[in-house]
């Protein structure tokens, strides 16, 4: 075997992909060939640096995993809803060739008579059959149609089937105990453009943070919301759980990253109040707070290390 072949094997050796017999042969060669030995040392050094880099990437941010899972679940929900709800076979009897001719004739007559035909949209009531499919065959006056697709169109019979989505204004009333209300509040907290709406949503949810899904929504708001008022309210709702591991992690993240000093102060106060004997936390907290530009936070960090000992 040539030195190039052996050097090829060095890569496999370092990745533990070399068969035993080849490994022994390579190791023997490395002892007698200075060039290959140098190549081995050099590649081993690079491998070590790259391994350190891989170790840094081995854990993914848990909030990213939560977000990604949630996003996927939402999209799967949407696909399933579309599958079951938005087939509109009711259109199927509208456009037969004869009716098209009749329509053209009527329009011509109407124009000739100077009559303005204001609404040519015809909607036939839903075909009786399978109410379980929950199909909508009447387009609401205030609804907006999107993603319209022609599912099938038969030029011979003139039958057409369309599918799409309709969105329309929503108004809903209910109590917090109602799953739908809670679910809508989660959406409002996550998606509402108006910070005032998000603040109202977070205030309602923060009243009952004992539910796991509410706690998760509050953590997301604390970390991601652009509005400091919303983040502060989320923090207040969570502070009594500052001894729970994931809430503690969220508070540490806030302490390290939030631009609002008031929120960071709340975070350190809550962490200290709920974890007064945790020496490990105190050390991490000190490392984070000593870089803070707020003197109160820096002094609190030092104080915590002192009291936790």
């Amino acid at each position, binding site marked *: 075997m040539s030195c190039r072949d052996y050097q090829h094997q060095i890569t496999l050796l370092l990745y533990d*992909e070399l068969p035993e017999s080849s490994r022994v042969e390579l190791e023997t060669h490395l002892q007698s060939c200075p060039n290959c030995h140098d190549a081995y040392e050099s590649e081993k050094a*690079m491998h070590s640096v790259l391994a350190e880099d891989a170790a840094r990437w*081995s854990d*993914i*941010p848990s909030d990213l995993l939560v977000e990604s899972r949630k996003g996927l679940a939402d*999209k799967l929900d949407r696909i399933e809803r579309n599958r079951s709800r938005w087939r509109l076979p009711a259109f199927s009897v509208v456009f037969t060739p004869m009716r098209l001719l009749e329509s053209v004739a009527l329009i011509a007559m109407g124009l000739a008579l100077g009559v303005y035909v204001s609404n040519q949209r015809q909607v036939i009531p839903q075909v009786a059959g399978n109410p379980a499919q929950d199909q909508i065959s009447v387009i609401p006056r205030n609804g907006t149609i999107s993603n319209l697709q022609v599912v099938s169109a038969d030029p011979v019979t003139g039958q057409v089937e369309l599918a799409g989505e309709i969105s329309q204004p929503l108004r809903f009333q209910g109590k917090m105990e109602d799953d739908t209300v809670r679910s809508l509040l989660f959406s409002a907290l996550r998606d509402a453009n108006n910070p005032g709406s998000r603040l109202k949503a977070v205030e309602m949810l923060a009243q009952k943070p004992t539910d796991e899904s509410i706690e998760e929504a509050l953590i997301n708001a604390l970390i991601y919301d652009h509005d400091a008022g919303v983040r502060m309210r989320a923090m207040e709702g969570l502070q009594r759980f500052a001894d729970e591991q994931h809430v503690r992690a969220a508070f540490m993240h806030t302490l390290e990253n939030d631009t609002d000093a008031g929120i960071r102060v709340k975070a350190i106060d809550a962490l200290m109040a709920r974890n007064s004997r945790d020496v490990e936390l105190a050390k991490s907290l000190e490392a984070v707070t000593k870089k803070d530009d707020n003197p109160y936070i820096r002094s609190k960090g030092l104080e915590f290390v002192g009291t936790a000992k």
Partner: protein
Amino acid sequence: MEAILKRTAQRVHESDDEKLLIEQAQNGDREAFEQLVRRHDRDILRLAFHMLGNREEAREVFQETFLKAYRSLSRFRFESSFYTWVYRIATNVSLDHLRKRQTLKEEISYESDTEMNPDRPALKETLAATTYYSNPERRLYGKEVGEKIREALKTLSEKERLVFELRHYQGLRLKMIGEIMGSTEETAKNYLFRATQKLRAYLTHV
């Protein structure tokens, strides 16, 4: 790395009931599909996050991968493991994103600090100091090394990058990488060799 290899071994034991879950999911059982997702989603997200280097695109790749799997699950014929099949989708989606990015001539925006320091010592010296991470004062310096590695990875061809990513960062065996690529273990070996040669050449000359 050991943790990754351990997870790989665990996956083998899980393959028995995976078949049942796949069949249930093929019959429209959403819960079964979600169980399949939960078994592999961390690995897929790790792949996407490292390949793309930012959260937004990682999330997109993650969702696109599993939505594609969901839509085409009925065509899964058990010719490979579900894990290999999903990884194949994920690598294709990741590469598509990288290609689009290249077309748009966008810079890869890694979340780490990308400020360059002209006074930084040559990486060659760092490579010699293999224990640099043991010294806390050099941790920041390690971050700069990470940035250089990101740059070096950009010099690899698509397949070299893919094989290196799957072997080095995801800890998959070359045999499985060959399957994911629709090729052989031998081909994967060659790409790994070329990738490490290129990386070594790049990293020892900056």
